[in-house]
């Protein structure tokens, strides 16, 4: 405790800060004084409000009440830039370094004022700071090539880049080895001597005592205890701990969970109470020299071998991002092996998929609860059953058995104390702790033998941490085998029988947990080989911020069903109305009377024979819409509709003259429809396989294939299908009696009925079967789909094939029923026109039908009415564009004001984030 502060005024003072989030008061009347040369420790468990306070100091969030004083002057910090200008630097818990950029580039991001990069100046500045920190950093190495300790030094340099008065370190030690912690301690001491004020956030009492000059304890947003410099100097470590624990858990001291939490918080590894080497238990999981392929976002594992015996917990230690995900996913079967083998109870399962390994008793509790573990939009009950989809007794013949599912779900909710309003509540509205309990309930039921736990207590409150650890211990004492992957050394030391150390995808050693300096021995192993370790990925965790999200959804649920339907109706119709109004203004601008024109459109579209023409047009439109819905629901974009439609059309109408004479008519139509569907479906194979194998963006590939298809279709029309006696490039005209028959008494061909039947069939497939449920899960999160054993590449290909087939069928129905021939360069562009309506129908086939009917009337009437006034038909494209724009605008205001449901499934918004672990912004 070096400097004194009696004479000095605080450098930064936090005054009466209060910050509320929906349903939570994150900070309540918090005040802090921060002095130069003083390290102020901020203690508190997850969700106590530490992060919010930091966010306010860093300009990321604005306080509802209270203010901040800098050098005694009341200063607003409206954005991070002001914070930087005012000398407040933050080192966040998760790395903010951009892995693909060099150290120097990362640092120069702070040079907001200059236009040209000032490399020379930056190098000089880095040298200054390095000297101060007592470390040397290679300015030209990429951030991802640095070890975690070094990355943290770069982060500190970044925080101090523009000159810092207050340095905030947010849980800086949580992922460091004991050796790196010592180095950090040294750095902080140097900075303190240099006159910097430091806020040090931690939940480890040991560190707080060792590094802090003053201590404040936060609990539920309130500062419940302070120990100032003079006081702290007079206290020994034990009495400090007692005071802090009393502050954090006072009044609940009789509570068992609280005392356990206190033990956890103290950061004192206990070692397993009754350590006994389970040499006798049979080996249930055996991994031998397993390696995975590298992906861009993750470290692969490299020749890993380990044996796991029944009744034992084998810990896997290592710095985050060193191959933990690859190891867990390889064992679970979510990731294939490049070499090596995996055996379950002596049986080789290397070639088996996720589902068959699950059946053999292997389970995986993922670390990415929100985006891999559950599907937030599905009910708690379905989430509990996620890995049983399609299997008896919960599903029979593809249909869900509600009674069985509910009964089982209710049993699990009881047994695992999952706090949820009901089993039909959406899982996404639960708190992080309850979601984790849900996952454990799912994985530990139905006869598990081997369970991989990946960071099972990460980001949870201390009570749930205790509960989760009890569940793991209980599972093992019943003869189960657990592989515990964790970045929390203390947890590993407390839980494991043996601990292996993972570094850069390899196992670098094994430590038997006999209680003698286990943590230090692991630390040595971790550092020995990780001076140049890979970058830790910024993992998504179920932290306090994500737990705040559900309240909005709950508010929504509180609204009545009737209100929701009304909302949905308004939101679906409004874009169309607005687009017609805006289109009317444009019409007026080019000299067409909009009211009269729309009147004409309705007139030609409905009156007289108009309705029949509209229904005829509806047939191909509905099929195209259904084809789009199939892929959109799965979060895939098929924008190759034009090409697929034309291929279907040309195949049908090109072969029709020959086939309809050679075969009975009905058989000819059947063959033609099938042929058209097949050819169009086959056109999606290349994009589908590229997407399934390499994740290549399907938006672009389907578009390219569409352009190629248009060329092929034109070639066919000018070549083999060219009508003999005509100079115009078109196919031979099919005589009326060899086209699709009409419905009695109308001009509507049977293709309309076919379209309705097929659309309803697809609707039932998507909404009523286990296949449809799998599609929805895949659409919500491809990672969850992989996790629960859905064959993702297969699903991508199948959905694209269905989509292509439906759109090809549209081409066949349209040409065989209505046109009878097609010309080169003809393109009705149904797909682009119908797309907005598919979203307005919320990707539900039945709900989309009225919209399709509306558009059919619009298009039919428009074609004739625009001829009358000499308006190009392409103007309809503008109307479609306007509908899309208004739809997204209403979506925007809708989410702002929390109205109804989104048109676009959450997953779709992130179609582009391939390979990234995180989902959409919550």
């Amino acid at each position, binding site marked *: 405790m070096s400097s004194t502060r009696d004479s000095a005024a605080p450098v930064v003072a936090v005054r009466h800060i209060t910050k509320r989030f929906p349903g939570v008061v994150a900070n309540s009347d918090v005040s802090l004084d921060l002095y130069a040369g003083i390290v102020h420790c901020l203690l508190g468990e997850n969700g106590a409000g530490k992060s919010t306070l930091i966010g306010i100091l860093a300009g990321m969030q604005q306080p509802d009440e209270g203010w901040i004083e800098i050098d005694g002057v009341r200063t607003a910090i409206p954005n991070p830039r002001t914070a930087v200008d005012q000398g407040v630097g933050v080192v966040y818990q998760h790395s903010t370094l951009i892995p693909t950029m060099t150290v120097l580039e990362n640092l120069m991001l702070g040079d907001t004022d200059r236009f040209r990069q000032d490399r020379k100046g930056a190098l000089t500045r880095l040298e200054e700071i390095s000297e101060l920190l007592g470390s040397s950093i290679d300015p030209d190495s990429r951030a991802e090539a640095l070890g975690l300790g070094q990355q943290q030094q770069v982060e500190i340099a970044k925080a101090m880049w523009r000159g810092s008065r207050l340095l905030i370190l947010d849980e800086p030690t949580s992922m460091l080895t004991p050796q790196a912690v010592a180095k950090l301690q040294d750095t902080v001491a140097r900075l303190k001597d240099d006159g910097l004020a430091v806020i040090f956030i931690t939940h480890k009492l040991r560190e707080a005592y060792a590094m802090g000059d003053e201590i404040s304890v936060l609990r539920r947003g309130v500062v419940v205890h302070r120990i100032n410099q003079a006081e702290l100097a007079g206290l020994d470590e034990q009495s400090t701990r007692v005071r802090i624990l009393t502050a954090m858990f006072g009044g609940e001291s009789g509570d068992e969970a609280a005392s356990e939490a206190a033990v956890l918080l103290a950061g004192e590894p206990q070692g397993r109470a009754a350590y006994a080497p389970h040499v006798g238990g049979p080996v249930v999981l055996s991994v031998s020299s397993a390696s995975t392929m590298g992906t861009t976002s993750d470290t692969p594992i490299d020749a890993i071998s380990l044996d796991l015996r029944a009744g034992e917990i084998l810990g896997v230690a290592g710095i985050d991002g060193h191959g933990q995900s690859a190891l867990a996913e390889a064992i679970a079967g979510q990731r294939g092996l490049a070499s090596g083998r995996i055996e379950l109870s002596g049986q080789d399962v290397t070639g088996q998929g996720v589902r068959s390994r699950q059946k053999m008793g292997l389970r995986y509790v993922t670390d990415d609860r929100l985006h891999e573990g559950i599907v937030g939009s599905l009910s708690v009950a379905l989430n509990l059953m996620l890995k049983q989809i399609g299997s008896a007794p919960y599903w029979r013949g593809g249909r869900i058995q509600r009674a069985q599912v509910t009964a089982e779900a209710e049993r699990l909710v009881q047994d695992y104390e999952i706090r949820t309003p009901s089993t039909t509540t959406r899982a996404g509205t639960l708190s992080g702790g309850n979601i984790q309990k849900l996952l454990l309930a799912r994985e530990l039921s139905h006869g598990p033998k081997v369970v991989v736990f990946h960071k099972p207590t990460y980001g949870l409150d201390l009570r749930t941490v205790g509960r989760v650890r009890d569940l793991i211990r209980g599972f093992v004492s019943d003869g189960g085998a657990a592989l515990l992957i964790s970045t929390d050394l203390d947890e590993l030391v407390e839980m494991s029988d043996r601990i292996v150390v993972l570094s850069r995808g390899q196992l670098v050693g094994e430590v038997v947990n006999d209680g003698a300096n286990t943590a230090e021995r692991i630390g040595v192993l971790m550092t020995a080989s990780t001076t140049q370790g890979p970058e830790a990925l910024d993992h998504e965790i179920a932290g306090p911020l994500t737990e705040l999200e559900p309240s909005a959804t709950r508010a929504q649920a509180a609204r009545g069903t009737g209100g929701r339907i009304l909302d949905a109706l308004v939101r679906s119709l409004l874009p169309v109305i607005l687009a017609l109004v805006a289109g009317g203004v444009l019409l007026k601008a080019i000299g067409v009377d909009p009211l009269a024109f729309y009147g004409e459109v309705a007139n030609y579209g409905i009156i007289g024979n108009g309705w029949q023409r509209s229904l005829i047009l509806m047939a191909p439109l509905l099929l195209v819409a259904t084809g789009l819905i199939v892929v959109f629901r799965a979060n895939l974009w098929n924008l190759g509709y034009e090409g697929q439609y034309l291929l279907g059309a040309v195949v049908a109408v090109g072969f029709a003259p020959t086939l309809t004479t050679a075969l009975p008519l009905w058989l000819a139509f059947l063959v033609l429809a099938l042929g058209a569907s097949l050819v169009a479906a086959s056109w999606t194979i290349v994009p589908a396989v590229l997407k399934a194998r390499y994740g*290549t963006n399907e938006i672009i590939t389907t578009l390219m294939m569409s352009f190629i298809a248009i060329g092929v279709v034109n070639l066919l029309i000018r070549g083999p299908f060219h009508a003999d006696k005509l100079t115009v490039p078109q196919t031979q005209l099919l005589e009326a009696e060899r086209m699709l028959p009409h419905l009695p008494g109308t001009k509507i061909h049977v293709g309309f009925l076919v379209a309705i039947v097929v659309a309803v069939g697809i609707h039932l497939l998507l909404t009523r079967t286990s296949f449809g449920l799998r599609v929805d899960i895949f659409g919500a999160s491809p990672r969850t789909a992989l996790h629960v054993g859905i064959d993702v590449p297969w699903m991508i290909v199948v959905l694209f094939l269905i989509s292509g087939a439906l759109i090809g069928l549209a081409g066949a129905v349209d040409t065989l029923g209505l046109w009878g021939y097609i010309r080169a360069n003809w393109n009705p562009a149904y797909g682009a026109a119908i797309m907005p309506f598919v979203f307005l129908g919320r990707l539900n086939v039945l709900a989309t039908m009225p919209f399709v009917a509306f558009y059919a009337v619009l298009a039919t009437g428009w074609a004739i009415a625009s001829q009358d006034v000499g308006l190009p038909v392409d103007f309809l494209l503008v109307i479609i564009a*306007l509908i899309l724009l208004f739809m997204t605008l209403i979506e925007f205001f809708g989410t702002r004001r929390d109205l109804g449901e989104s048109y676009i499934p959450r997953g779709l918004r992130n*179609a*582009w984030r391939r390979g990234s672990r995180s989902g959409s912004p919550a």
Partner: protein
Amino acid sequence: MSAMLTQQFAVVFIVAVIAGSIPLMLASLGETVGEQSGVLNLGIEGMMLIGGYVAFAVTLASGSFWWGMLAGGIAGLACGALFALLSVWMGLNQIVVGIAITLAGEGITSVLYDKEYSDTSPRLGLPDALSIPLLSKIPAFGESVFSQSAFFWMALAAAGVVAWWLSSTNPGLRNRAAGQMPASLDAAGGSVLRTRSWAVLAGGLFAGLGGAYLALISTGAFTPFMTNGVGYIAIIVTMLSRGRIRWVLVVSGVYGLTIALGTAMQLTTISLPTDVIQMFPFIVVMAMLVIYARGSYVPPALGTPYVRGAR
């Protein structure tokens, strides 16, 4: 005589390569800046059409290619501003907004062309060639590469400027950071929204210029739907070049070659249907995508609106 023919053939061929490459290169430059900042612009096709139409109309009215180019660029910039407002500031779905802008661009230009020019189908002459002394005497290349208009050289200069801007300036650095890890840029005191807005504006400007170049110089006239997928190909060029401008030049050049091959074929005795010629670039691009499927790359934050504090 035959030597003359070959030389003339070479000149036509090289001119065709340039005419095919430059509009795509310009559009890809803009798309590269945008994608590097984390914004996917699917409206590029519509922006090119609008830029092309406006440039064409202004050139006809003013008689000056310079005014036409400028107007095309400004029209693209305006589209970019709309896209920035909707997708960056309001955080609307970039794919849907992009498709809407493309549809609107197709519809509006087609309607306007139909109203104004469909009867006369006017065509423009050639812009003044900038013959470079000495170099323009080189056989084949002299009459093609070194006798291009000033716009050609300005387009190449623009590529150089963008490359320099991305690699050597702080705004360029921030642009890349916004696409890699926007939260990091925010924490460092930069503005993600502003950075992305500039990128989208640049994307609109370059798309407009690309469309203008296509209409005024490569084609000599505007016709509805004339881009015929070039805007989408620009997105592929961007994906394949992974943010490196020299690769934008190379891939655009390959595309120009395929266009020129089609033109060249028509001059020779080989008769190839125009449909095949039109398909050719798409097949080549698709083949490149298949071959380099693993190599194509998009920034991690692409397509995701930035919301501070959301993780």
